[in-house]
């Protein structure tokens, strides 16, 4: 299905990542957002509030992030494509409702423009320290999709991907910007609506008599209806059976929770989204994402100039983690260098994937700015020895 042209601002723009993200969400068909202001994410909803009355939709500024993160889910069950946007402290407050969206299989998008933490931390300065929170922040077991753009153009592109995956897998999707990407202004090309693929909701064709809201199809994902369709659906955060009725038995818990995790398996393997370069002869691979991947680009160039066979693996879909891809790579390189603006998060996944087949070297940074490329270069040089 093509994008609805009403939401698509076709043309060449010079805008920052937050604004580009908003345009991507609009192009994907988002017509509802409930937000709460927080630096450095606010520009996304500011632009949405400005744009939506002429596109046709609703923006509401809620009383807190707890409200913002569930109001959008009410809108989804009423039929809308909906999202919210936040940063660190707000992301923490939204965790319970990310779990609700996972449990009730509510397709929606959460944008987190990461800043330094913990707590109020560095409101205006970058970090990438919410990556584990994005995956594990809500209680219990569930699968998660998280995408990491590294440019305003990708903020636009991946906002559409985020909604498409949310609809396909009936799941919340995290779009993980960082302050640098959110506030970086670059050229953004927005194509014509008919060149943008948009995944429609999985509306059922079954009648109310036989339809079950949580009965999985062959791809492990159930189809949907919305309130007002005459299906008398029941949606609960309690462990529930295929009809949606509470059923707190060990059997139902086992099969529902396993499915919430396993339905995302294709994205961990064959459909993982990543970018590579110079891997054919690489002895050292820099695994990075977001703004850090652009800093690492400089380090990789300097390393090649010194004759070090260094290659790039950029995570775009950070969750589910592309374990198999990195494991295969780990078998034929000396080391993986993992720079990130946190004290070691995705590097733990890289270590797990490498499973001892190569060295894994973290290049940590507590946040507030980006790495100096020389620091990453130094790690590459040492890894190559």
């Amino acid at each position, binding site marked *: 299905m093509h994008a609805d042209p009403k939401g698509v601002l076709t043309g060449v723009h010079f805008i920052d990542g937050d604004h580009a993200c908003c345009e991507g969400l609009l192009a994907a068909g988002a017509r*509802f957002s409930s937000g709460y202001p927080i630096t450095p994410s606010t520009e996304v909803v500011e632009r949405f509030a400005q744009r939506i009355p002429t596109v046709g939709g609703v923006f509401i500024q809620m009383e807190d992030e707890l*409200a913002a993160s569930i109001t959008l889910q009410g*809108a989804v069950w009423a039929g809308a494509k*909906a999202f919210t946007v936040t940063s660190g402290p707000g992301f923490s407050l939204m965790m319970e*409702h990310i779990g609700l969206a996972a449990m009730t299989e509510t397709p929606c998008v959460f944008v987190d423009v990461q800043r330094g933490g913990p707590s109020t931390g560095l409101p205006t300065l970058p970090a990438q320290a919410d990556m584990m929170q994005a995956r594990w922040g809500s209680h219990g077991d569930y699968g998660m999709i998280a995408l990491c753009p590294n440019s305003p153009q990708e903020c636009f592109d991946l906002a559409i991907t985020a909604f498409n995956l949310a609809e396909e897998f009936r799941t919340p999707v995290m779009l993980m910007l960082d302050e640098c990407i959110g506030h970086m202004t670059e050229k953004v090309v927005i194509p014509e609506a008919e060149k943008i693929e948009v995944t429609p909701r999985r509306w059922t064709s079954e009648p109310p008599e036989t339809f079950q809201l949580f009965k999985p199809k062959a791809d492990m994902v159930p189809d949907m209806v919305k309130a007002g369709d005459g299906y008398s659906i029941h949606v*609960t*955060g309690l462990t529930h059976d295929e009809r949606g009725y509470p059923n707190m038995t060990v059997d139902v818990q086992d099969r529902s929770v396993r499915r919430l995790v396993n339905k995302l398996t294709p994205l961990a393997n064959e459909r993982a989204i990543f970018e590579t370069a110079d891997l054919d002869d690489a002895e050292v691979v820099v695994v990075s994402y977001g703004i850090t991947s652009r800093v690492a680009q400089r380090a990789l160039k300097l390393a090649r100039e010194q004759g070090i066979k260094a290659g790039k693996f950029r995570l775009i879909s950070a969750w589910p983690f592309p374990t198999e891809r990195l494991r295969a790579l780990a078998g034929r390189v000396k080391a993986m260098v993992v720079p990130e603006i946190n004290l070691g998060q995705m590097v733990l996944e890289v270590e797990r994937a490498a499973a001892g087949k190569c060295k894994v070297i973290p290049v940590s940074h507590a946040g507030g700015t980006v790495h100096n490329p020389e620091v990453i270069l130094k790690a590459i040089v040492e890894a190559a020895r």
Partner: protein
Amino acid sequence: MSDTLLEVLPEIPEDAHNPVEPFLRMDRMPHIWCPGCGIGTTVNCFARALQSSQVDLKKTVIVSGIGCTGRVAGYANLDSFHTTHGRAIPFATGMKLANPELNVVVYSGDGDLFAIGGNHFIHAARRNMDIKVVCVNNMIYAMTGGQTAPTTPGTSVTSTAPYGVYEPTFNLPALAEAAGASYVARWTTFHVKQVAKSMEEMMKKKGFCFIEIISPCPTLYQRRNKMGDALDAMKYYKEASKVRNGAPTSETTLSKTGEIVVGKFVDRDRPDYLEVLKAQMVSVLGDRYTEPENSCCEC
């Protein structure tokens, strides 16, 4: 044995059925509520109000939070949503805004709506969001074993106030009125006809509506406070209630054993959220304002 109990009187028509059954998920009965719990009585009244108000049931949704009353959504034969603790109102807000054709009812308890969810309640009332909020006030956190709620009256004993509650309570009608609600009423589970009538009025009224229903919790409130069983609570409601329609909500504070002022306190008209939104957008944007399409995912 049940055969000996069923009084099958000769004149009972074979097609006689309980009038509330079409409004409930009878396949989920019996419900989880304790013997004498008043929540079922309020649901009974709600089912009758759905019938008498003649709302389109296909366009009527019910949203609950967490707790004993939070389970109401699961028993109503409507599109029903059992959300998170305290957040039924923002969820309902999203539903109403994304599809204004829906009649959106929030049905939850006093702890859910006024402790953890208190902020959402006052903001939805301030916005005059067109949602209907029913609060079953059993004056305690019952699902979790009888802890103090912001409605537990002074000196009552709870599991977290073993020496008696000393915090002041919220006066819910006053809170609702001050925050901007269009319709505010309070009854007890003794006042079944009035509850059903208020619910019918609420379903027909535009804007933020609030009904508080005082209800027995024989297991965790009455028992721990040596106040007898549910029937004793009902007799107390009958004796202590004073119907004062239009009473100033400054006079509706509850106490442990005192008078219960009941009635319809507020019934006023002011533009609801969506009306104000549209008026503002049209005044600023004129023809450029584009009305939201419902269910945009079908586009």
